[in-house]
């Protein structure tokens, strides 16, 4: 059998200014600058990527604006590093266009019910939510061309860090100087946001003690990260067909800073919201209290390892792994290995004592919906 060529190469350029670094009254500056840099008219990396028809990706982290470029051809992606310094700052008219486009995106995010649920859960779990990374109408209106010019001058030169996919000869940047977000303290509590409609979204997050590597991820998969193949689906789709959609996830950064939580959510009819919350709670506790049979752990581990390693097989997968390593973040291949170990030793997270869970409801329920009842 012949082997398929492992085509493609990728580069990531990290600028050391993310939404958490935006001035208080100019939230959205990092996102706006990124939008400008990727504009094919700006003369920067967006222009180069457009000319070469590269695939691109942009991600914001609290202290980082990360740009990724991928080519399936024999391109010299190294050029992209210098392209950042070539971007011409926008004039007033171009900036107005960028702000309008960013506001449309911010509105789309804000109107998405799932995003709203996650924001509500995060805010309830840890206190006040972060300032919106994309900014608001008011904060974006306060940003002038001089702000973007200053951002580009401060971040697109020597402070930019370039990561290349394995196999390239270019020297790797020295690790370090990677700023991590401040740990968020757990608060917990209950919040209901009444909204019209036929669907109620409920979610629950239980803070857990710092678990062994891979343990929290395995617990998520035992519940069902996409609502399939786990205990949540059996409880809320099989034994009681209540949920239109459901899933488990980790609340808290992958770097392990701050309090991590095991979170679950479901979409149900208003009449089923109370029962669904009780079932979510019972199902989460069934995993955290254990014991979970080894066969079930092994199956969940294999599903999760497949999902993690599939991400490494994506076009940006190799360079993402290299970047994680250099930034001191857990690599997905290492996480997959840890998950395999947890399937064998059975180490799973336990509920953090003394911390209040976060419980939220969004939809056609009364404002005092969560005031009575034991939710966690």
């Amino acid at each position, binding site marked *: *059998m*012949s*082997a*398929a060529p*492992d*085509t*493609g190469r990728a580069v990531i350029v990290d600028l050391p200014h993310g939404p958490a670094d935006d001035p208080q009254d100019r939230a959205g500056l990092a996102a706006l600058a990124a939008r400008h840099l990727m504009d094919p008219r700006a003369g920067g990396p967006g222009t180069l990527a457009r000319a*070469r*028809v*590269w*695939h691109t990706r942009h991600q914001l982290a609290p202290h980082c604006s990360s740009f990724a470029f*991928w*080519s*399936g*051809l024999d391109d010299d992606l190294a050029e992209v590093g210098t392209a950042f310094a070539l971007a011409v700052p926008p004039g007033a008219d171009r900036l107005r266009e960028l702000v309008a486009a960013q506001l449309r995106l911010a509105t789309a995010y804000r109107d998405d019910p799932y995003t709203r649920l996650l924001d509500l859960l995060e805010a309830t779990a840890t206190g006040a939510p972060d300032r919106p990374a994309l900014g608001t109408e008011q904060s974006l209106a306060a940003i002038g061309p001089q702000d973007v010019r200053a951002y580009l001058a401060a971040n697109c030169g020597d402070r930019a860090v370039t990561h290349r996919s394995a196999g390239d000869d270019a020297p790797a940047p020295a690790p370090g100087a990677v700023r991590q977000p401040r740990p968020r303290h757990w608060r917990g509590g209950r919040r209901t946001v009444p909204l019209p409609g036929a669907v109620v979204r409920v979610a629950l997050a239980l803070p857990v003690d710092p678990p062994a590597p891979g343990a929290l991820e395995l617990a998520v998969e035992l519940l069902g990260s996409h609502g*399939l*193949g786990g205990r949540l689906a059996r409880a809320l789709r099989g034994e009681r*067909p209540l949920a239109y959609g459901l899933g488990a996830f980790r609340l808290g950064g992958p770097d392990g800073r701050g309090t991590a939580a095991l979170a679950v959510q479901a979409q149900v009819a208003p009449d089923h919201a109370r029962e669904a919350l009780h079932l979510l709670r019972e199902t989460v506790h069934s995993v955290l209290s254990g014991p979970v049979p080894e066969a*079930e752990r*092994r*199956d969940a*581990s*294999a*599903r999760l*390892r*497949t*999902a993690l*390693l*599939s991400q*490494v*097989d*994506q*076009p940006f997968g190799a360079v993402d792994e290299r970047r994680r390593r250099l930034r001191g973040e857990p690599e997905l*291949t290492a996480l997959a290995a840890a998950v395999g170990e947890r399937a064998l030793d059975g180490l799973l997270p336990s509920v953090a004592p003394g911390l209040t869970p976060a419980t939220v409801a969004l939809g056609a329920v009364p404002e005092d919906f969560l005031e009575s009842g034991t939710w966690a």
Partner: protein
Amino acid sequence: MGMTSVDLGGLRVRLLERPGARTTGAVLLVRAGSADDRPAALGAAHLAEHLRIAAGPPGPASMPPVRGVTDNTTTRFSAVSLPEDAPALAARLAGLLGTSDLADTVFEAERQAVLVEHRQAAANPLLALGPAVADAALPGHGLAATRWADADALARLTPADTAAFTDRHYRRAVAGLALTGPSLDPDRILAAIDAAARPSPPAAQGAYEAYAESDAADAADAADGPSEDRGRRGGHPLALSPELDGLVLLSLTCDPAATDHLTALLGPEGTAQAAALRHGHPVLGRTSLTGRSPSGRAVAVHVLCWRAGADADRLADSLAAGAPAYRAAATAPEALARASLRRRQEDAHAARTPLGAAAALLGEAPDGPASPAPPVRQAPPVPEGLALWRVDRGVLRRHV
């Protein structure tokens, strides 16, 4: 040595090793889709896809779920696994070529899931209008077949309908299976596939003949109906929401193979999109529909869509008047070179993952025989051409 390509009792199997990959990807392609629905059982293809996943041979609980997509002429199943599970993955997909007992609750649950999908598609302008435009541009080729079934048609479906569809179309001879991953063991994988895929037994032939007779009866019934019935089999017209008013669409009928000329004309930097952008209208989306002529010839209609609102007439006029110019511009050497670059990048990106590489092995237009075609009906020859459309008060109209 080239790629491993084996005929397993009619089933086309392709294996390709990718040493650096961390997972194995697999795709099963059945060359039958909604256009193969009998008029009396619209929606059977889509529901059969759901049921084969939900009630088919159980895979290991350690394996991620199989995903399915039904379009007009094909049904595609895909899944990934850890490399060591590649034989089990192959068996899981090959086992979809068969039948199995079905609980009533599973049938009803999947019927509801299909209904939800149909509602979601109806709410998306491009998913709702693309098939309608394609079918209007080239009637009689099943280009809107995925939209033939409405809620009433789905409610009428019985387990016997979907079992008959599966029995007729889920056969080795009209399917292909591809795997890509590291350290593939061809002997083990091929043995697993051969053991899992239903052979084409003589007993099944009887059911097939009975099904064909039903088709003949359906065809006779259809022949008595009005010729306009081509886009609304079973008497269910395609309904367009008034919310779609103000949309402008461009359709291009051609052979299914993607070409640089097509990319130069309709692609993201294509001359047609540029022509609309000059009027301030970025494209809302693009879709491609494939169909089949009564003789089995594959056809495609590509559709671009703009939301022009009150400016719809002006945009449609301009796109109609400017068509000769932007069609000619798409044949310029620079435009074709640019389109070639884009296509090579897109192809490389799509095939970068094991799953994408497996899909690429089967290709968009498999070289195997198509599923048994419905009874031959008279249809116009395939015209190659471009047309513009508008939605006006809930009605799709060709813009003249």
